[in-house]
């Protein structure tokens, strides 16, 4: 099957990024946009835009019926779900299949089995991959029992969650009932599945994930790992590849575990297997698998030279894997900073509004994935990601310095941003040394650090 036209069921920078690859491949694009996104950058870049509903995601980007209707009406060959929204909802994959449209991603069944974090945990265990102690909880009483068994602190996680959404850390038993309620409500709103589970909170770990590609017939390759340990409240802020300071054997075992996990289910498409790495013990635990393209995929592209979206499309078209494991030879180091519309001075409160002026960094080794230009509007209905700045260098130091300059050269006016958070982290000695754990950023913000603001020009 040849893919001539794709419907993009997403918004923001990822919609722009998918359009970019489609243009290069000569594929027409149809953007499914909500009312408030009709004048957005992706809407202008797409060959056609269809307004699928009002601003609220529930009525637009999460509306399977409207999206499939748009796909059929626009006579597309395939639907690209991006990340978030319906990307990991079996309903969209299923509805696409029923309507003769290819879904650029795994099968509905695979989405179901990895999307249900409890089933994914069981699958990991069956594949001989260690998991963090925990269990599902249906009631407050159950939650208290599980928390007592695995020990405090615990993480409350959404069974249908991912990307750090719907996660709450609980230190005291008396806080558990309300945390469960809030997590259920957040999970229900964000994923349409209010079930939650508890996991022991590992205090000193690193978040390392492995990018994989599968042909859906049992062939799986990996494209190396990404270290996403710089997080604030379980939201990734800075990612880099390769993960600094891992032993060769641990790195290899991570890659192998990820491939094994995906191959056992004959995974189709691009996916990411996330691990919690315990450096001191040279050990790791399976966290979850993300059955979609990840926000931070560009750093893998930077070091491997592979266009992951293009491979996703090829796999959906039935071409299988066009690359063998031996074709993947990552070179150099890449780092990504997520630029968010949030006010660092006021507890990182989201800062929707109008961008009055913007100027992104340019230069060798710099890539900026964004949908933000002057006069762009950042609506309050969606997440606060404005751009991803990716810097490449042959060595880690060089990539970091490239990023430092790129952040200083970035100008955004009209909304508050987290640019100075990035400058502060980049100028931190511990971060410069590499290998920080997931608690690094919280400790840095607690101290409090010397706030670094750098502006070029």
């Amino acid at each position, binding site marked *: 099957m040849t893919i001539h036209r794709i419907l993009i069921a997403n918004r923001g920078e990822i919609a722009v990024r998918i359009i970019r690859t489609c243009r290069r491949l000569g594929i027409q694009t149809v953007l499914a946009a909500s009312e408030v996104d009709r004048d957005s950058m992706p809407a202008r870049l797409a060959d056609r835009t269809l307004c699928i509903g009002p601003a609220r995601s529930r009525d637009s980007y999460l509306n399977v019926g409207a999206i499939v209707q748009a796909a059929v009406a626009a006579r597309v060959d395939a639907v690209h779900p991006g990340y978030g929204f319906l990307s990991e909802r079996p309903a969209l994959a299923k509805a696409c299949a029923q309507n003769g449209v290819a879904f650029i991603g795994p099968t509905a069944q695979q989405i179901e089995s990895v999307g249900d974090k409890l089933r994914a945990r069981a699958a990991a265990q069956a594949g001989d991959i260690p998991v963090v102690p925990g269990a599902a909880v249906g009631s407050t009483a159950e939650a208290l029992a599980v928390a007592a068994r695995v020990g405090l602190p615990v993480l409350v996680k959404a069974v249908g969650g991912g990307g750090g959404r719907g996660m709450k850390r609980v230190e005291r038993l008396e806080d558990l009932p309300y945390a469960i309620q809030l997590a259920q409500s957040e999970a229900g709103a964000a994923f349409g599945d209010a079930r939650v589970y508890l996991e022991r909170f590992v205090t000193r770990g690193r978040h390392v994930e492995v990018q994989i590609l599968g042909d859906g017939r049992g062939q799986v390759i990996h494209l190396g790992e990404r270290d996403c340990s710089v997080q604030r409240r379980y939201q990734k802020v800075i990612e880099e590849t390769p993960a600094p300071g891992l032993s060769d054997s641990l790195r290899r075992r991570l890659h192998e575990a990820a491939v094994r996990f995906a191959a056992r289910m004959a995974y189709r498409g691009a996916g990411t297997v996330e691990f919690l790495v315990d450096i001191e013990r040279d050990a790791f635990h399976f966290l979850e698998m993300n059955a979609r393209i990840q926000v931070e995929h560009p750093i893998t592209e930077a070091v491997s030279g592979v266009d992951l979206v293009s491979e996703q499309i090829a796999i959906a078209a039935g071409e299988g894997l066009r690359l063998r494991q031996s074709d993947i030879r990552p070179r150099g180091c890449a780092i990504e900073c997520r630029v968010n519309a949030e006010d660092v001075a006021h*507890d990182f409160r989201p800062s929707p509004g109008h961008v009055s002026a913007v100027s992104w960094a340019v230069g060798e080794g710099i890539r900026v994935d964004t949908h933000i230009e002057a006069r762009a509007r950042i609506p309050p209905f969606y*997440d606060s990601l404005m751009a991803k700045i990716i810097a490449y260098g042959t060595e880690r130091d060089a990539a970091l310095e490239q990023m430092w300059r790129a952040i200083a050269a970035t100008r955004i006016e009209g909304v508050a941003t987290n640019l100075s958070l990035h400058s502060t982290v980049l100028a931190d*000695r511990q971060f410069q040394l590499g290998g920080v754990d997931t608690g690094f950023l919280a400790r840095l913000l607690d101290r409090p650090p010397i706030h670094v*603001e750098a502006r070029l020009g």
Partner: protein
Amino acid sequence: MTLTAKDVAEITRLLEESNFDELMLELDGLKLTLRRNGFAAAATSSNAEGGTAPFSQCGRPQTVSADQGLTPGAAPAVGPAPPIADGASHNISAPLLGTFYRAPKPGSPPFIEVGSTVEEDTIVGIIEVMKLMNTVRAGTRGRVVDILAQDGALVEYGETLMRVGKAAAA
């Protein structure tokens, strides 16, 4: 630009060891500002430069200026109500713009009703913004006399959600 991230890490250490709170440096077109006390310090200074309207702290009602609105050309019909300063009642206003919910989840009883008594830390609602649920606390003591915000409605930053009658001095 000759000043590297490594250089700045070094400068940061010097500042840490010094008696100064702030250091500004201009070199090769790079304007560098270092401030002790982290991100809170940034609140008072640099934000206005970037054209950002500074927000007030959570729970402290403030009249929202035009440039804080989402779409200056299409301002919502209902603006934030001015705080009542009669001393007899207190407004609980939205700490941020988003979708207001009165109950922890659909179908659950609301956190509070008219007539409920609230303490400073009583949860009175949830505001969903960018898929995150933010708890709204009363921030005052007393009896709820009026609930203005509709469940599931978009509320603006600073918009009055409910009014609380002052508790008699205990």
